């Protein structure tokens, strides 16, 4: 079982050597020469520099297509027509599974056809030099966004290729993204990734790391998401990461979202070492979207409005085509501009929302309890603690597909639309906190004249795509809104 200790240079070296042979592009990686490439990049392409010095929330979309030229065109479009401040490269699903052979086939097939046969950019297959072509061709810094439990080779290739930010983490890219990876292994794999980032950082090339805050994207209670961010931040800091962007996915309740982002920032400062620069990223609604672009624009706009009030360092935008499939570049750019309009119209307004402090205190108390449980479970070691805590269910994520988590905790919205916990299962929370959740959900149940049940959870899962925030029952036994609103 891994412990939260820094990998030695030797270990780093040895693992890197082993990985080199997993796919032929691994052999292109040369650390010294990579440092030189990074040093040749202007400040405007240095991820941490741009992000940490920004005076307004920066916008970043998601985007990845299989072929290099198309990926360049896509990102350039998002930069020029969407006004993206930071660029992404979303990796395909085969690469996420380390199935480079299949990715190679998909890439070849995509090259020969109009259709994209991969749902992202297979960076390992492209190799170091093609990654650099991408970096050179664009004016903004670029991040690798993926969902890969074992992202070691991906990190080696992309960091050598000039990317300066790397999303994910041992929990956030395991629990929501896979079924059979155990946490001990993903922690070890990410210790390597973080150590590699640390190695660059020590040589003056700061690599930004961004744990994936939204987790399953579906009604995740803020305290759970934040606890995972803190644990991943701590693990990364141990390996020498010095630029950390902690994430949080919009739940749609303005007060709760602002409170959660403030709590995330405050707790980040509290739990992470001083030498780490902590920034925050807000993800526009990550759950099911309305099957209607007009309504989707409303969801996106509420995200923009929330960002204008909470002022995170970065916002990951959605497109109005989120429901349907990978968006066209036009729709992707439209999501950026809609968000930008909201932020720029609202950010100078003095918006003082009542109830934020109270909600923030509740989130912080709850997160403290979860962090406490992790540390206790690990006898003071956060790596062991998080494995034990997920194993026992003391820490858990709703709708987790992974065998490594109980996935037994269930969220539901209260009468105000804030996400509360309906089923705690073994979540390590003190009774007084549980009572607050229960009381709020009790209120809602009374308002609706029905019992709390999985039906309520299911209604809440569908609510936003059905056009509401809260999945209230309607006369006909179906939640309000409903398919008839779509077009």
């Amino acid at each position: 079982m891994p412990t939260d200790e820094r990998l030695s240079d030797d270990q780093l070296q040895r693992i890197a050597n082993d990985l080199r042979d997993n796919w032929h592009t691994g052999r292109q990686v040369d650390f010294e020469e990579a440092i030189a490439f990074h040093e040749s990049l202007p400040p405007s392409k240095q991820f941490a520099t741009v992000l940490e010095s920004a005076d307004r929330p920066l916008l970043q979309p998601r985007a990845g297509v299989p072929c290099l030229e198309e990926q360049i065109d896509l990102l350039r479009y998002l930069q020029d027509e969407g006004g993206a401040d930071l660029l992404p490269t979303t990796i395909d699903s085969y690469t996420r599974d380390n199935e480079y052979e299949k990715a190679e086939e998909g890439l070849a097939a995509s090259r020969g056809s109009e259709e994209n046969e991969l749902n992202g950019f297979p960076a390992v297959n492209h190799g170091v030099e093609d990654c650099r072509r991408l970096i050179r061709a664009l004016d903004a810094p670029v991040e690798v966004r993926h969902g890969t439990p074992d992202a070691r080779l991906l990190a080696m290739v992309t960091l050598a290729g000039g990317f300066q930010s790397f999303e994910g983490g041992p929990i956030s890219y395991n629990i929501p993204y896979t079924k059979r990876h155990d946490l001990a292994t993903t922690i070890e794999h990410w210790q390597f990734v973080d150590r590699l980032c640390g190695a660059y950082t020590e040589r003056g090339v700061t690599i930004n790391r961004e744990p994936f805050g939204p987790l399953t994207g579906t009604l995740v209670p803020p305290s759970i998401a934040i606890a995972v961010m803190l644990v991943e931040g701590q693990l990364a800091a141990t390996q020498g990461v010095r630029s950390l962007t902690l994430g949080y996915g919009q739940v749609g309740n303005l007060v709760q979202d602002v409170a959660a982002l403030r709590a995330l920032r405050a707790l980040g400062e509290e739990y992470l070492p001083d030498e780490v620069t902590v920034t925050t990223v807000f993800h526009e609604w990550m759950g099911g979207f309305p099957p209607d672009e007009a309504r989707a624009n409303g969801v996106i706009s509420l995200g923009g409005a929330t960002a204008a009030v909470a002022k995170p360092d970065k916002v990951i935008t959605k497109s109005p085509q989120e429901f349907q499939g990978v968006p066209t570049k036009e729709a992707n750019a439209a999501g950026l501009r809609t968000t930008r309009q909201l932020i720029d119209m609202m950010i100078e307004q003095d918006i003082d929302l009542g109830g934020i402090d109270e909600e923030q205190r509740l989130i912080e108390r709850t997160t403290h309890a979860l962090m406490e449980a992790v540390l206790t479970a690990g006898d003071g070691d956060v790596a062991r603690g998080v494995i034990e805590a997920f194993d026992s269910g003391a820490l858990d994520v709703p709708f987790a597909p992974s065998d490594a988590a109980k996935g037994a905790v269930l969220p539901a919205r209260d009468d105000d639309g804030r996400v509360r916990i309906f089923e705690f299962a073994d979540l390590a929370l003190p009774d007084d906190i549980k009572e607050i959740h229960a009381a709020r959900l009790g209120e809602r149940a009374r308002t609706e004249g029905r019992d709390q049940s999985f039906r309520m959870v299911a209604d809440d899962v569908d609510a936003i795509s059905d056009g509401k925030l809260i999945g209230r029952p309607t006369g006909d036994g179906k939640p309000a809104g409903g398919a008839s609103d779509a077009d």
Partner: protein
Amino acid sequence: MPRTVILGVIGSDAHVVGITILEQALSSAGFEVINLGVQTSQDEFVSAAKSHDAEAVLVSSLYGHARQDCEGLHEELDAAGLDVLTYVGGNLAVGQNDFEDTRETFREMGFDRVFDAETDPEEAIAKLRSDLQLTTTEAEQIKVDG
């Protein structure tokens, strides 16, 4: 006697929310649901169908690789001597495709029915009942039992 259906997300897809909702809806409608979860291989679908003597296999896919992941599934089912009803549903194509083309593709691959992501669980259940020739009374019976 409740009818058994196999449910799962194929390939390396991890989108679990849809099948969680589906499982619950199918169970309350009286079906016996074997939920294989996410990232289920074709083999797992086939052997589950066999060992549970299932009447239908419900394949879910959201992440855009459904076509690749489902290729050969029907051949495997045939090879195992299984003549079950097969449904596929979710976001079946990469990008903003026209659903009718997608439906055609999956029908040709052998699926009895193809559902898009706007499908309400009740809609799938109604089709399942009619395809399995459950009479309304039988269906209601099941509901009472379930």
